C-alpha cells in the first residue's frame, strides 16, 4: 500500500483510470434503431401457425414479397380450416394441385388496396374494390345467438382489425370465392325465375346481362343491377306464362323493339351501376335502363319499398324487396328480388304548387307554423335543413303575418320565406328540393312580396339550368285595369285572390321535366341585397293548363273560388 502511494501522481492517476475501466463493462451499448416493430402482412402470416396455408398460397402465387411492402392494405385472411375446406370444394389434395391462375384470383379477391376497418362496413359493398376487381359485400348475421360480421354473406369475421405494419387484417372462416357467373346465368339458374328469364330472352336483355365485365378497366359504370321477380309474383298478378305476359304488356308485338312495352317492362327492372340494398336504401330515386323512367325507393322501418308515392294526396302502395334472397352478387352486377309485380306508371303532368316555407323543419314548429299571431319570425340554421341548401352561413326565416295583414299576410297561407340578406357570404345560391314533379312541360311562376328598395334581380335555375327570365324583387304587381290575360302574355300575374298590391308573380320560364321525381330549384341573387327577400310560392303548371286559375286564397290555405 505504501509503495502504491509512493508512485508518481501521473502513474497513480493512470492506475485509478485503468481500474475504473476494468470495472466498467466493455459490452457494446445497445441502441434501438427502429421505432416500430410491427410486422408487415407476409411476416405476420409466417409468424402465425394458424395461417400457414394462406402464407403458402402467397408464396405459390408470388404475392408474398408484394404483401410485405409498405402500403395500406386490407387482407381478409382465411384460417387453415377455411383453406382446407376450399381445397375439398375444388377437389384438390394440396394447394399445388390447383391451377396457379385460380389461386391468383383467389388471393386478389382477398386484398383491398386501402386500409378499411370494420367500423366502415355497411350493409352493402365496401367502397374499394378488391384487387381482383370485384366488390366485397359486408353485413352481419346471427348464428345461435352469436353475431358476427360477414363478408360476401358466407364468411364470418373471427378476429377483426388486426393492425399490421402495412394495413389491417380481418380473419375469416371461409375462403371468399370469385363470382364467376354473369347476371344472366345467375338468373337462368334459379328455376323460380324461369318466366323472368324467358322475358329477358325475348326482349334481348339476356345478352346484355350476359356480358362479362372487364375488371382490368375497373369500370363501375358498366355494372348492372337487376330487380327480378319470381314466378309466384307473376302468378299473383295473373300472369302464368310468357304468352300471357306478352299479351298483357307487348303492345307493339315486337318485344325486341326498345319502345315496346314489354321491352320497357324489362328494362325498367335493370338499373345501371352496382347497387346493393344498402345503396338502394339511401337513394330516393333509382335511374333505370328504361329511358327517363325512375323507380323511387324508400325505407319504411326495415323494409325497402319501391314506387311508394303520394300523388295528389293518395298513397300508392309500394312493392317490397325480399331482403333474404337479394344482394346476390354476379360477376357483372347484383341481383335483387321484388316481392310483387310492378310496372311503369303512366302519369299525366299535374300542377305542383310549392310553398317555399313548407319545409319539414318549419312544420315541426307547431306553435309557429301557419299560426297567426304567434311569433312572426323564426329562424333556423342551415345545418338543420334536409331539403334546402345554400352558400353562406346565415339562417333562413319563417315569416308569418295575420291573414291579409302585416307585411306578408297577403301571400298564400299568409306566410313567406324570408332571406334577411340575399347576397354573397350571407345567403346565396339557395337551392330547394321540389316535391315530385311528373315528367312533362311546365311553366314556372314564382311569387313574392315586393320591396321598394334594397333588393334587386334574382336568377332562377331548374336542375342547374338557368331559366330565361329573372325576377325583379323591386317590381310590384300591376293593379291597373289591364286585363290579366294581357299581363299573362307579358309574364306577370296576380296569383292571390283578392289581389294584393304587395304581392307579385313572375313567369320565369318553361321547363321540360324529363324524369318524374324531385328536382332542384335554385335562386341566385345578382347583387348585394341589404333588404329582406320574401318568397311565397313556386308554381309548376303544365303548359296546357290555365296559367291564371285557380288562384290562391290570399292569407288562406286553399284556392280562391273561380270567378
Amino acid at each position: 500500500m505504501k509503495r502504491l502511494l509512493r508512485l508518481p501522481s501521473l502513474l497513480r492517476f493512470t492506475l485509478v483510470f485503468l481500474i475504473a475501466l476494468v470495472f466498467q463493462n466493455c459490452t457494446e451499448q445497445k441502441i434501438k434503431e427502429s421505432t416500430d416493430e410491427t410486422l408487415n402482412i407476409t411476416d405476420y402470416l409466417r409468424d402465425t401457425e394458424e395461417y400457414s396455408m394462406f402464407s403458402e398460397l402467397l408464396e405459390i402465387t408470388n404475392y408474398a414479397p408484394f404483401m410485405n411492402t409498405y402500403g395500406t392494405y386490407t387482407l381478409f385472411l382465411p384460417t387453415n380450416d377455411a383453406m382446407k375446406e376450399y381445397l375439398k370444394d375444388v377437389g384438390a389434395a394440396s394447394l399445388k394441385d390447383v391451377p396457379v391462375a385460380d389461386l391468383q384470383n383467389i388471393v386478389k379477391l382477398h386484398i383491398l388496396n386501402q386500409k378499411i376497418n370494420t367500423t366502415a362496413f355497411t350493409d352493402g359493398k365496401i367502397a374499394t374494390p378488391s384487387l381482383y376487381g370485384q366488390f366485397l359485400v359486408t353485413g352481419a348475421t346471427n348464428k345461435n345467438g352469436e353475431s358476427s360480421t360477414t363478408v360476401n354473406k358466407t364468411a364470418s369475421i373471427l378476429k377483426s382489425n388486426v393492425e399490421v405494419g402495412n394495413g389491417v387484417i380481418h380473419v375469416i372462416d371461409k375462403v371468399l370465392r370469385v363470382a364467376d357467373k354473369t347476371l344472366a346465368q345467375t338468373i337462368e339458374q334459379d328455376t323460380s325465375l324461369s318466366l323472368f328469364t324467358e322475358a329477358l330472352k325475348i326482349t334481348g336483355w339476356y345478352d346484355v346481362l350476359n356480358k362479362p365485365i372487364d375488371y382490368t378497366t375497373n369500370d363501375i359504370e358498366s355494372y348492372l343491377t337487376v330487380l327480378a321477380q319470381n314466378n309466384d309474383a307473376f302468378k299473383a298478378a295473373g300472369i302464368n306464362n310468357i304468352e300471357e305476359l306478352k299479351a298483357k304488356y307487348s303492345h307493339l308485338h315486337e318485344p325486341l323493339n326498345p319502345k315496346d312495352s314489354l321491352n320497357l317492362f324489362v328494362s325498367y327492372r335493370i338499373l345501371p351501376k352496382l347497387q346493393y340494398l344498402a345503396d338502394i336504401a339511401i337513394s330516393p330515386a333509382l335511374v333505370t335502363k328504361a329511358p327517363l323512367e325512375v323507380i323511387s325507393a324508400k325505407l319504411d322501418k326495415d323494409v325497402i319499398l319501391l314506387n311508394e308515392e303520394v300523388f295528389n294526396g293518395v298513397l300508392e302502395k309500394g312493392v317490397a324487396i325480399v331482403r333474404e334472397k337479394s344482394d346476390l352478387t354476379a360477376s357483372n352486377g347484383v341481383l335483387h328480388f321484388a316481392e310483387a309485380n310492378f310496372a311503369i306508371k303512366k302519369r299525366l303532368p299535374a300542377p305542383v304548387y310549392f310553398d317555399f316555407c313548407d319545409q319539414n323543419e318549419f312544420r315541426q314548429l307547431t306553435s309557429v307554423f301557419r299560426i297567426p299571431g304567434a311569433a312572426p319570425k323564426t329562424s333556423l340554421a342551415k345545418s338543420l335543413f334536409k331539403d334546402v341548401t345554400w352558400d353562406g352561413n346565415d339562417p333562413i326565416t319563417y315569416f308569418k303575418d295575420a291573414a291579409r295583414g302585416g307585411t306578408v299576410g297577403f301571400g298564400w297561407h299568409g306566410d313567406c320565406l324570408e332571406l334577411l340578406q340575399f347576397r354573397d357570404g350571407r345567403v346565396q345560391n339557395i337551392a330547394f328540393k321540389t316535391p315530385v314533379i311528373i315528367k312533362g312541360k311546365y311553366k314556372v311562376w314564382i311569387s313574392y312580396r315586393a320591396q321598394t328598395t334594397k333588393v334587386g334581380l334574382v336568377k332562377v335555375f331548374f336542375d342547374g339550368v338557368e331559366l330565361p327570365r329573372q325576377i325583379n324583387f323591386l317590381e310590384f304587381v300591376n293593379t291597373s285595369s289591364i286585363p290579366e290575360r294581357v299581363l299573362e302574355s307579358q309574364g306577370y300575374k296576380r296569383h292571390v285572390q283578392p289581389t294584393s298590391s304587395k304581392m307579385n308573380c313572375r313567369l320565369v320560364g318553361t321547363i321540360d321535366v324529363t324524369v318524374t321525381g324531385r328536382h332542384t330549384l335554385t335562386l341566385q341573387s345578382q347583387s348585394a341585397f341589404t333588404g329582406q327577400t320574401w318568397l311565397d310560392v313556386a308554381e309548376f303548371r303544365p303548359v296546357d293548363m290555365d296559367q291564371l286559375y285557380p288562384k290562391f286564397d290570399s292569407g288562406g290555405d286553399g284556392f280562391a273560388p273561380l270567378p
Partner: protein
Amino acid sequence: MQTKIKTILAIFTLFIAATSCDDYLDLRPQDGIIREEFWKTKEDIQAAVIGMYSSLLNSPPGVSDFPMSQYLFMHGELRGDMIAPGLNATEDQRDIMNSNIMASNDLTNWAIFYRTINYCNTIIDLAPAVREKDPTLTQVQLNHFLSEALAIRAYLYFTLARTFKDVPLKLTATLTDEDNFQLPVSPQKDVFAQVIKDLKLAEGYAVQDYGNNDSNKGRITVYAINAMLTDVYLWNDNFQEAFDAADKVIKSGKFDLIKVSNNTWFNTVYAKGNSIESIFEFQYSKTNLGPFYNIFFQRHQFLASATVLEDVFGVDFTNPANKDIRGDRTSLVAGTNEIYKFTGENNDTRKELQGADTHWFVYRYADVLLMQAEALAELNRGSEALTIIEEVRLKREAIDMTAETIATDNKKEVIDYILAERSRELAFEGKRWFDMLRNARRNNYARLDILIDGAILSAPADQQQSIIAKLKDSNSHYLPINTYELYTNKALVQNPFYK
C-alpha cells in the same frame, strides 16, 4: 497531529451519521397531506366524503377525461333511440350511436368509475380506525359516512355492470404500488349481488335527514339508497323487493310531483334543482359548472333525434297549445332538436354560460314511481301499474295523443306503455338505453324486439341490417373493455362479441 485529525474526522463522521436521518432528507409531498397525517378526526372523514362527491362533478386537475355526468349521459343515451349526433360529435361518439363499437373506442374507458370507486374504498377501509383516535366521532356518525361511500360505490358498480356486463370488483382501497392490479372480471350477476349487499348495508347505516335541503338532495339518504335498490332489483328480476324498496320512498311522504305550470315547473325541477321531486342529484354550482352547456348548446355534440318530438311527446298539428309540457322547450327545442333540459332557465329563456349550473339528476320521484309500476306489471298487477302511469300523466298534463288504452292483464303492452312514459318523463337523463336493455333482457331476452325496434328507428339506412343482426347477440349490448385496460391488466378477458 495525526490523532487530532483523526479525532476531528471521527467527530465529523459521527455528526453526519447522527443527524443524517433528520426530516430534511425525508421526502414528503409539498402540495398534499400523506395518509399517516390524515384520517385522524371526523372532519378528515367528512372532507374525504365531500371529496368523493366532488369527484362525481368534475375530474381532478390534470386528468383529461369527461366529467362523470357526461359518461352517465353517454352510456345511458347514445345507444338508445332518442339521440342524434350534433355538429361536434366525435367519431367515437358516432360509432357508439351506430353500434359500430371497437375496443379502441375511447368512450369505453372506465378509469373515471374506478377512480371514484377507489375514493369510496379508501373511506370504507380507513374511516373506522379514526374512531380510536377521535373520541368525538360516534359510531352513528361513522355509519353515516360509511353509508354514503357504500352507496356511491354500489351505484358506480351498478352502472359499470349495466354498461360493460362483467367487470373487475375491487372492494379494497388501493393504498400502495404493491397492490395487485391484475384483477379478473366478475360475472355481472356477482356484481349485482355485491351492489345489493352494499346497498342493504348502507341502508342500515343511512341518514334520513341532514337538516338542510341541499344535503338531502346532494348526498346519499336512505331514500336515494332505496331508489338505487329498486333499480338493481328490477335488473335482477326481484320484483317484490323492487316494489318494497320503491314503496319506502313513496310512503315516506317527503316527495311529490309538482303540478306543472309554464316556466315555474321547469325552473323549479330542472334549472334550480333540489326540488321536492328530486331524490339524488349531482350538485353543480356556479363555481363548479357541469359540462352540459358545452355539449348540448355551445359546441353541441348531441341532439335529440328527429323523431323524438313527434313519436315520443306527440305533436298536435291542429292546436299548438295542446302539448306535453315535458316535450318542446323542456326536453328539447322543436325545430332545432337541441337538448334543452340541462341548459334552460325556464321554458322561454336559456341560462347564461356562466350560470349554467343545472344539476345531473340521478333519481327523481317520477323515476321511482315508474320503476314501481314496472315491478307491479311484472308481478301481474297491471291495473295498479296503470294507476301509477295515470297519476304521472295527470300531474304532467300529458296530451291525449300519447295516452293508450290497454288491457291490464296484457303485460307486454303495460311494459311498453311504462317505457313510453319513462321516455317522456326521463328524456335525456341517461336512462333510455338502460330502460330498453333491462326490459329486453328479461326472461332470456324475450323482448329483444324493444332493442331492434329502437335500432330500426335510429340506425343509418345503409347499416340498419348489420346493426339488427349484431343486436341479436346479447354480448353486443355491452361495451367492450378498452384495449388499454387489456394491455395493462392481463387477467381481463374481452367480451367475446368484440373479438
